[in-house]
């Protein structure tokens, strides 16, 4: 059984005109990889476009670590455009005039889906660290229940970048009969040691903040720690070349260095801003849980270490996209997925886009990426009789 309502956000809505989307609450327990169950649980989601009569034009978009369900519409808390506004909308590569687009907030998130800030029915208080550690597999299992509830059997395409791409791979492995096309972007089938290391820096920054209080901080976030976590992570989303081009050694609001520790350099000021604005829209415990889910992701480990076996039953057409300057999810990690797919003779395309914008390139106006997505989805639509 499931009930749909308006989502509950942690912070007040500052954009009353923005569509808050929906939230569906399941009384059926969600079985988690850690052995525990989550019940009841809620998934907050947005949809764009119209589901056709054959229910064959649905595309699921999976968001990245700090993303949310607002892929293509104004964010109700920040007022900013959707995080994939460049990609999703009427006439855009993921064309909402043609496709029915679904985007959910992941389990463990903080934009209306059940996460560590949600109320634990056992205690009447926020879960905090009592929230079970969730995995990419859990996120996808929850999404599948939503897709069921929406009456959709097959997804024309599942797509997403970074952690979103991990979910795409998990979808293809877990629900091979439900994924017609899969487009994982700038991702990996496992989190690398370096990526785990960066995440651990972020988590330690949060947990070192005295305001964290072992996760039991109520409404007073450990903002300093979360901001530092975001600053460190943000560097990994950019390329050295892009940082240099954007900021170089330019000074911020001053003509000379101050011989102090204020934000002398523009790049420092920029990172401070990134950290501060992030704290306004994200929950520190959610950050711990979701980074952990990414760290635990190793798709091959569920298949005796043979990644190809994860895709043994897939009939999906795949399109993998990587970016030349992405050092967080570099081309070889994406190519490794392509090789595993080849080993099963799956239908796979792989495109590496020349860009100096680093990992974040998948969110930006990269014409070749947009063209690739458009071409891939056009072929998908034609093959499935979608007008």
């Amino acid at each position, binding site marked *: 059984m499931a009930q749909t309502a308006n989502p509950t956000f942690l912070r007040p809505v500052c954009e009353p005109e923005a569509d808050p989307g929906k939230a569906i609450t399941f009384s059926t327990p969600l079985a988690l990889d850690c052995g525990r169950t989550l019940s009841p649980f809620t998934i907050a989601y947005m949809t764009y476009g119209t589901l056709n009569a054959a229910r064959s034009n649905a595309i699921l978009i999976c968001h990245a670590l700090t993303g949310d369900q607002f892929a293509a519409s104004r964010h109700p808390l920040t007022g900013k455009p959707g995080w994939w506004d460049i990609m999703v909308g009427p006439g855009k590569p993921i064309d909402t005039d043609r496709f029915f687009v679904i985007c959910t907030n992941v389990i463990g998130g903080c934009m209306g889906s059940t996460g560590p800030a949600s109320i634990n029915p056992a205690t009447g208080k926020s879960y905090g660290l009592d929230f079970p550690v969730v995995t990419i597999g859990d996120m996808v299992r929850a999404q599948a229940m939503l897709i069921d509830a929406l009456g959709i059997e097959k997804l024309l395409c599942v797509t997403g970048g970074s952690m979103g791409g991990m979910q795409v791979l998990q979808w293809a492995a877990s629900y091979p009969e439900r994924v017609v096309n899969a487009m994982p972007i700038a991702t990996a089938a496992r989190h690398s040691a370096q990526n785990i290391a960066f995440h651990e820096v972020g988590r330690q920054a949060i947990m070192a903040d005295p305001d964290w209080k072992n996760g039991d901080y109520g409404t007073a976030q450990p903002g300093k720690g979360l901001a530092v976590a975001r600053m460190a992570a943000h560097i990994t989303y950019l390329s050295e070349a892009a940082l240099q081009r954007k900021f170089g050694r330019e000074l911020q609001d001053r003509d000379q260095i101050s011989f102090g520790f204020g934000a002398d350099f523009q790049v420092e000021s920029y990172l401070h801003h990134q950290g501060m604005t992030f704290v306004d829209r994200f929950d520190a415990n959610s950050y711990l849980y979701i980074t952990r889910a990414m760290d635990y992701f190793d798709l091959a480990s569920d298949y005796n270490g043979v990644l190809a076996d994860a895709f043994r039953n897939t009939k999906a*057409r795949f399109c993998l996209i990587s970016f030349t300057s992405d050092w967080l999810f570099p081309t070889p990690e994406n190519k490794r997925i392509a090789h595993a797919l080849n080993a099963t003779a799956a239908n796979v395309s792989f495109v590496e886009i020349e860009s100096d914008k680093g990992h974040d390139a998948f969110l930006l106006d990269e014409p070749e990426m947009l063209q690739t997505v458009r*071409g891939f989805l056009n072929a998908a639509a034609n093959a499935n009789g979608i007008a």
Partner: protein
Amino acid sequence: MSLRPDLAAIAEMIEADSRVLDVGCGDGALLEHLKRTRNVDGRGIELSQQNVNHCVARGLSVLQGDADTDLADYPSQAFDVVILSQTIQATRAPAKVLEDLLRIGRRTIVSFPNFGHWRVRLSLLFNGRMPRTHALDYAWYDTPNIHLCTIRDFTQMATQAGATIEKTLALDANGTKPVQADAFGPNLMAEGAIFLMNRRGGAAWGPIAHRAGSS
């Protein structure tokens, strides 16, 4: 859009509805033609990323890769036909590439420029310099064609690899019209050749399953 004559000749060899892998598929012209006219389930491998991006934007299934290194990932007998057109002479290890092609495809089509053509032979004989013909228009120091061969050379390699040659087409002097190979010395008269081969009953194939290192 008309297909390059040698590609059209290759297309003629492919049955409708088959699974085709085009190794070195370029801009995808042959794959698109096969998809449109013969309803094939086509895939491509292409070295140039620019070409790959172009192919995918056209709706084709193509990935960036190298015949020398990436064919090893493919399971045996995964395709009805594997095509390698005008590429084998540019690979580092042609024998290994042919071995992979014969393993992956139930049938294999290879086309290549014939270094035994009389123009090539005369060019070296009379000029005393590395031959440079319109089919092979590169200086010796910047040619991608590092493993050129004659039709006779290729026939020998294919036989050694255990291939049964089903059909050979010789591309004529203008490179436009394929003609049936006959006793009248295609190795001398043809500028290029197309071989259709198989290795049924040759090597003992394992089932389509993952191999070591494929993860």
